[in-house]
């Protein structure tokens, strides 16, 4: 009962916060955001913060992370830091455009909106809504359904800024966009950002997102990212979650794919307290193909929960989901993977796997596949495994002189390798593999800066 009343109080507080600040929100934002705000708030009032009475949130206590006292701001706070101190070295051989969000707001280390040679536009979401309202209106809040999830509704009700990436028809190519979400604050903070990626017909985008906390504070992030993939476009999206273990994160992404498009959406989770990742994919046009992948290495009291929903709404599409968890100490995890094959989605190929290694008897994982198939000519499969490292393999490695510790590390690394291998940009794959190796060795927690960009400051 106590939990129920807590949730009601929490929902009321967030609702009050909205109405208290509504005028300021409306006056400081563009109509693109404002036109959806009231309906999103209405939906939030109905749904509230999802607690365990919501089927999709059974394994993760979301209200708990909202209950700790966090500062909330609806205007940008001045946070200054020397970008080059933190990010002065780049991924070798990888040409990236760096976009920084600090506490959810675009950081002006570069123009607020920039048209790059070749036509790609990157920058601030708020700025893009002002500059290109018609383009944004076509996509904004079209994929993120705020009527089903209170967290998406909350984000939409308060949306003000985030990152914007636009790749026009036929553009793109090798240049990767690196988005670094920096959390930097003298006080505990609640952060929401709203991001949009538009990849038009035959265009290509490579996006690397890194989530980092630069202060030893408690942060809570509730982010929403919408991704549109036009016909025959390509997207390679890698998200690296590496915040401090006192910070919690709910990241919800919507990937909308048109005919013949293909996407790889890969989430690598290293550090962070409670992490909930939602990835909704809609295969909306014939012949679209999607890979949604995840690798999580968690220990101590970390909690990782991945929810995926792949909606096969057109024929001849294929989807491949593969999530791997390594859990040490008392870490807990959940995976729910839902595949929906609609009646017209004939010749669908859908595959889903969740494999877990539990290093201790206290680590726990709940895994739940859900298949809903209405077409009759499809190939769908799913599987989940929970196990320990193979003692025969450990002994085999030891018998060659490799210590037990090193043998375990080699095997854990090998387990994650399958996911890392899907990162198509080689220098990025090498760097992330190295990070994963460091994480497994327990050498990463000391590092507070963005390890993708700079090792020296660690």
């Amino acid at each position, binding site marked *: 009962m106590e939990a129920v009343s807590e949730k009601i109080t929490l929902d009321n507080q967030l609702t009050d916060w909205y109405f208290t600040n509504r005028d300021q929100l409306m006056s400081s934002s563009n109509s693109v955001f404002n036109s959806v705000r009231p309906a999103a708030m209405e939906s939030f009032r109905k749904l509230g913060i999802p607690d365990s009475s919501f089927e999709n949130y059974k394994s993760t206590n979301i209200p708990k992370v909202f209950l700790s006292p966090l500062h909330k701001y609806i205007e940008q706070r001045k946070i200054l830091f020397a970008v080059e101190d933190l990010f002065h070295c780049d991924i070798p051989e990888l040409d990236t455009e760096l976009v920084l969000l600090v506490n959810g707001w675009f950081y002006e280390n570069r123009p607020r909106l920039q048209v790059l040679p070749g036509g790609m536009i990157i920058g601030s979401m708020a700025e893009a809504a002002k500059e290109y309202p018609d383009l944004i209106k076509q996509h904004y809040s079209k994929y993120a359904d705020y009527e089903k999830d209170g967290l998406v509704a909350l984000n939409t009700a308060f949306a003000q800024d985030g990152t914007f990436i636009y790749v026009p028809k036929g553009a793109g190519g090798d240049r990767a966009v690196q988005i670094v979400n920096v959390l930097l604050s003298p006080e505990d903070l609640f952060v929401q950002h709203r991001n949009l990626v538009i990849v038009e017909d035959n265009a290509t985008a490579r996006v690397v997102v890194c989530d980092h906390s630069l202060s030893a504070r408690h942060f809570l992030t509730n982010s929403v990212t919408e991704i549109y993939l036009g016909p025959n476009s390509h997207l390679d999206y890698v998200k690296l979650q590496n915040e401090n273990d006192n910070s919690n994160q709910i990241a919800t992404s919507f990937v909308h794919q048109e005919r013949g498009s293909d996407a790889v959406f890969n989430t690598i989770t290293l550090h962070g307290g409670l992490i909930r990742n939602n990835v909704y994919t809609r295969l909306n046009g014939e012949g679209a193909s999607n890979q949604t992948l995840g690798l999580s290495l968690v220990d101590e009291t970390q909690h990782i929960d991945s929810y995926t929903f792949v909606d096969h709404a057109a024929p001849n599409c294929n989807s491949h989901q593969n999530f791997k968890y390594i859990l040490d100490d008392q870490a807990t995890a959940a995976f729910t993977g839902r595949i929906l094959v609609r009646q017209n989605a004939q010749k669908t190929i859908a595959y889903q796997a969740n494999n877990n290694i539990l290093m201790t008897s206290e680590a726990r994982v709940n895994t739940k596949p859900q298949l809903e198939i209405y077409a009759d000519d499809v190939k769908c499969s799913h599987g989940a495994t929970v196990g320990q490292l193979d003692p025969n393999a450990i*002994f085999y490695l030891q*018998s*060659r002189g490799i210590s037990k510790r090193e043998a375990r590390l080699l095997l854990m690394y090998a387990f994650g390798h399958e996911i890392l291998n899907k990162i198509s940009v080689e220098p990025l794959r090498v760097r992330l593999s190295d990070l994963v190796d460091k994480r497994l060795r327990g050498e990463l927690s000391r590092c507070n800066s963005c390890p993708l960009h700079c090792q020296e400051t660690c």
Partner: protein
Amino acid sequence: MLSIRNLKAAINGREILKGINLEVKEGEVHAIMGPNGSGKSTLASVLAGRDLFTVTGGEVLFEGKNLLDLSPEVRARAGIFLGFQYPVEIPGVSMTNFMRTAINEQRKYRGLPEMNATEFLKLMRDKKALMEIDSALASRSVNEGFSGGEKKKNEIFQMAMLEPRLAILDETDSGLDIDALKTVATGVNRLRRPDNAMIVITHYQRLLDYIVPDFVHVLSGGRIVKSGDKTLAYELEEKGYDWIKEENEE
């Protein structure tokens, strides 16, 4: 080099080795034969340090050190090598990474500097040539998708890389056709040196046509019941293991 005295070992409370005595000196090749279930593989596992087995008595000295006190990896670094009867598949760990880690851990133990990438790759190349190993094998994951013959060849390749003082080859011939057997045996013979030693465990005399032992021991019921020179292997082949059992009972 190796001195096994009255070694007893059990698994799940059931005694498998009931008092083994064996002396192995530098330059010697010892064959251990015996019927199924006689304890041959158990002996190999116990010497390599597999913790499935509990040593219930006796002692093993390896170059003066009490072997049974050492962890499996320290035994390996001290120069013991076990060629597995069933080599383990390890997806995701490349042969190169595996061997480089193993060699460098062994070098560290001996106070040698780590081998750099160039030296290491040269060593791999040389040993592959020596063992007549397909080059692609080394770029694959450890034993993953290898045929039975490839796995056994890979064991001998690892032995060539690590240059152990004492190699224990557990039924290296099982599951091999005659051509694969010859290749593996040729590889093993190339590694024979006056300063190392081998214990070759086999069920059949056939392997011993190619790897000619200095001594043959017959293991039965957890004890060495007969020892002799290589002619003992032929005698066994002719008369079968029942002959030993009968002789033993008398």
